[in-house]
């Protein structure tokens, strides 16, 4: 059972910094990402002078308040530059170097409307910045990120718990799953003009997973609006599952009775399941999942570390899967 305690970061909208002021704030000058990160934590600011100007996406709610409950001092965040240039976003190409280029060539992520639909009492179409205000602003959480391809990062996300969005939509008793859909815009999204995957990208969670406090909607990274290549203006982050569950650039959140077929499962059911929980004991058909490469760590040869059950969130989420055969429901 989860006991909800009032959160220190729940701010009224009036407390959010206006965009103009935010832009005026002093920037830290060039320095290693780690220092930027400490600044982010300390001041709610990230160094942006180093970064190329990106299209702004969801701009409301910054600076996000740091949530200290999700700040494991053991976790060393991956440099911003790597988080934002090593992406699997097949809508913009199948190489991890593609999205940073292709997603910033005129694809607009502002303005952006999200639709809440299906078996819920409050269906709505809502602007992403209004949504941020409605759920009470942003907080920053530092999460492990584990890709199904056996590499990992540590990412300081800015966003809000998915549970708040679920509460806003207020699903009926018939709703058992949440289905998420990515934007479909072949005119401006080059990958969607090819048949690489079955567009638009679809993902899903069981309703109890979606309500879990760790499930997160991210609208920022390192205290700035999330870049296009990382799924602007809002994406899902489910830190105990493989990265492909973290659907990007969401336009629709639907409450449904039946388990949705997620895109990678449609593509290759044997390789990608619905649950996709990080599990060192359940291999991918083509490689072992027992360990992972740590992106941007360990110098020339890099570093490999053991993969943790549920990506290190076993204590928090194991109860969701009690009695389930995780090798069968992979």
């Amino acid at each position: 059972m989860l006991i909800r305690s009032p959160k220190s970061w729940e701010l009224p909208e009036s407390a959010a910094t206006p965009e103009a002021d935010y832009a005026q704030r002093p920037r830290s000058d060039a320095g290693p990402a780690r220092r930027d990160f400490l600044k982010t934590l300390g001041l709610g600011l990230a160094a942006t002078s180093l970064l190329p100007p990106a299209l702004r996406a969801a701009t409301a709610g910054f600076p996000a308040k740091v949530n200290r409950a999700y700040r494991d001092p053991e976790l060393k965040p991956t440099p911003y530059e790597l988080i934002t240039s090593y992406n699997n976003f097949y809508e913009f190409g199948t190489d991890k170097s593609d999205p940073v280029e292709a997603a910033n060539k005129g694809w607009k992520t502002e303005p952006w409307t999200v639709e809440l639909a299906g078996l819920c009492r409050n269906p709505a179409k809502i602007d992403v910045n209004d949504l941020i205000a409605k759920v009470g602003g942003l907080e920053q959480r530092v999460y492990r990120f584990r890709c199904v391809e056996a590499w990992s990062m540590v990412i300081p996300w800015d966003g809000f718990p998915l549970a708040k969005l679920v509460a806003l939509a207020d699903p009926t008793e018939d709703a058992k799953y949440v289905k998420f859909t990515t934007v479909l815009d072949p005119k401006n999204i080059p990958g969607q003009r090819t048949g690489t995957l079955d567009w638009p990208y679809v993902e899903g969670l069981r309703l109890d997973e979606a309500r879990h406090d760790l499930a997160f909607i991210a609208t920022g990274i390192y205290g700035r609006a999330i870049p296009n290549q990382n799924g602007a203006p809002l994406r899902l982050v489910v830190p105990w599952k493989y990265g492909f569950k973290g659907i990007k650039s969401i336009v629709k959140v639907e409450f449904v009775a039946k388990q949705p077929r997620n895109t990678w499962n449609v593509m290759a059911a044997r390789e990608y399941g619905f649950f996709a929980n990080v599990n060192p004991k359940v291999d991918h058909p083509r490689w072992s999942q027992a360990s992972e490469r740590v992106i941007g760590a360990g110098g020339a040869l890099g570093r490999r570390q053991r993969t943790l059950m549920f990506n290190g969130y076993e204590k928090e989420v194991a109860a969701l899967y009690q009695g389930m055969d995780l090798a069968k429901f992979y």
Partner: protein
Amino acid sequence: MPPTPATPSALARLLQRKPVVWTLLVLPGLWPAWPIFVTRNPSVLADPLKFILHHLGFVACVVLVTVLTFTPLRVLFPHAPLVQALNRHRRLVGVAAAAYAALHFATHLLYEGGTDVAFLPAILATAVEKPFQLTGLIAFVILLVLAVTSPHAILRRLGARRWKFIHRFVYLAAALVAYHQISARKVFPVQVLWIFVPLLALELARIVTSLRRSAGSSR
């Protein structure tokens, strides 16, 4: 009437020379240095060893397919100086394919286990149980055997028939490599087509030509 031998073009003359071929074989292996050290591409720097791993596999594959085109080209264009020049270097290019496969495999061991040999058994166990990895491993072993048995002294010791039988396994290696490359990605990599389709076309043309010639000579 036999066609008059053509005068070799500048390219053919260049390709007759061993140092030129050596250079052409070594350069692709050095390519990863560019994004890592010169342009400092962050997408590559995120996991440079993975980039090197994939690149070496790709080069091994391309060099293998390249050497496999030499025989069908010789059957189809026996008098072309360029084809003759290429066929002077069959063994060198074949051994280079094996060398790149060895570098690719060594990088895989490094990528999976670092410099700690304690991980070797686990890495090999995984390789044996995953078809994607096993196909690459078998192809590598085949190329290794062919490289070791490539000197003339060994050909003489084995005899032409046995030697030829062993070296025909290169076609199995190529098929395994094609599968290995296809399954290396989450979605079908188109590059596999533009590497292997020209080879298949050449082999088909070669078979047709050989059949025609044997039919012509038996009449």
